């Protein structure tokens, strides 16, 4: 892989013609311009200037990611259906659903905060899972559904605001915080939620964004 040699002395006014499928590759963090190198499976391209990972090729990534996202979707439904935490104090019991973290704040009059928590723990993961399924499942047969290319942009955005793993840390901290006053037991939902985090993280690391876009562009509409 080479930096385009002539880049170093061409001045800013020179322009190049870009063919239909762009042969160029630019680093997102330092904007160094390259000709796209051909790599083998399991190899990765790293920017020689700023060491950002540019892209990689992973064997069979669509199948792997689709399976993991499917599992994540299943666990996400489970995590929302069953009680998340059970509090016992004074012979009284109360269950909290995953959505209870949102509705509690809502009832307290903090609707802005409730909206934020809802976006980070409910909306972002569901958008992420839904778009991934919409894009990946047809891609198993090399097809793409209408608007798939537009929707794929949402993956990027939803990924940034998806904070399920931070929420899990929050659960562990609040277990300890209430530990002295009342007994908290983890419900079915909690384990489903933990599994969701593992599956989603595995799916996202299995997907290379650049490779996904290339595959998607090449698929039959």
């Amino acid at each position: 892989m080479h930096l385009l040699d002539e880049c170093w002395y061409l001045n800013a006014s020179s322009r190049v013609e870009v063919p239909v499928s762009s042969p160029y590759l630019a680093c997102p963090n330092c904007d160094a311009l390259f000709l796209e190198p051909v790599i083998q499976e399991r190899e990765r391209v790293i920017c020689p200037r700023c060491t950002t990972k540019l892209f990689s090729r992973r064997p069979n990534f669509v199948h792997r990611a689709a399976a993991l996202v499917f599992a994540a979707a299943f666990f996400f439904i489970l995590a929302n259906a069953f009680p998340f935490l059970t509090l016992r104090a004074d012979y009284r019991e109360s269950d909290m659903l995953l959505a209870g973290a949102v509705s509690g704040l809502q009832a307290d009059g903090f609707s802005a905060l409730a909206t934020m928590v809802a976006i980070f723990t409910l909306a972002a993961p569901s958008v992420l899972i839904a778009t991934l399924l919409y894009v990946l499942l047809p891609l198993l047969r090399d097809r793409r559904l209408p608007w798939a290319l537009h929707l794929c942009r949402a993956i990027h955005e939803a990924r940034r605001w998806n904070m399920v793993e931070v929420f899990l840390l929050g659960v562990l901290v609040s277990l300890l915080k209430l530990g002295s006053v009342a007994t908290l037991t983890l419900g079915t939902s909690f384990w489903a939620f933990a599994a969701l985090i593992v599956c989603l993280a595995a799916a996202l690391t299995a997907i290379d964004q650049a490779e996904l876009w290339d595959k998607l562009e090449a698929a039959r509409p």
Partner: protein
Amino acid sequence: MNFDPASAAARGLARCHSCGRVELVSAEHCPRCHAPLHLRKPHSLQRTIALTLGAVILYLPANLLPVLRVESTLKGAQQNTILGGVVQFWQNGDYLVALIIFIASVMIPILKVLAIVALCLAARFGCWQRAMTRLYRVTDYIGRWSMVDVFVVAILVGVVQLGGVMTINAGEGALAFAGVVVLTMLAAHSFDPRLIWDAAAREQRKAFAKNERRSDQVTPGAASLSHA
């Protein structure tokens, strides 16, 4: 605008920020995913600085106002600020949790604001490009973990809804703190690390021009010396 000569932007090529395709910027929209194309993130520094300032201002109420109000029949009414929560965990002997909360809610926001200031300075003066680009990647990733305290409040409020023994209510500090985290996340996202490389190339060109000028001045002097 002066772009780094090795960059795509110097040749009128823009990298689509959502799908990564490199395309002539005159196309305006990415032909693949239809996102608008920009050579650099628009108004990157102004946006970053404005959002960071907002976060710094919100940081005060976030630490001064209570994040949690606890009323129990045993201990009476209590108000917890973020630092108060850390101290409480420390006194109870939960050193690990105290450390986690302290790192996530006190250290990370402060370090993040400092990192963003350093990045903005680097984008102005063009120094330590490699280290700064790495700092940007870390900053962009780590910000989300500050949200843990807000989630703790949300969970406690959600789970302790039975009256009698105790009631837990959220405080205004939690809202302010969530604001700090979201603003710093947006600030980090609107920063464009490619500006650092542009600035570095600019500085290099300036230094080069200075050297040339100096050698121009030296040569006639040297000539006159040889004549004497």
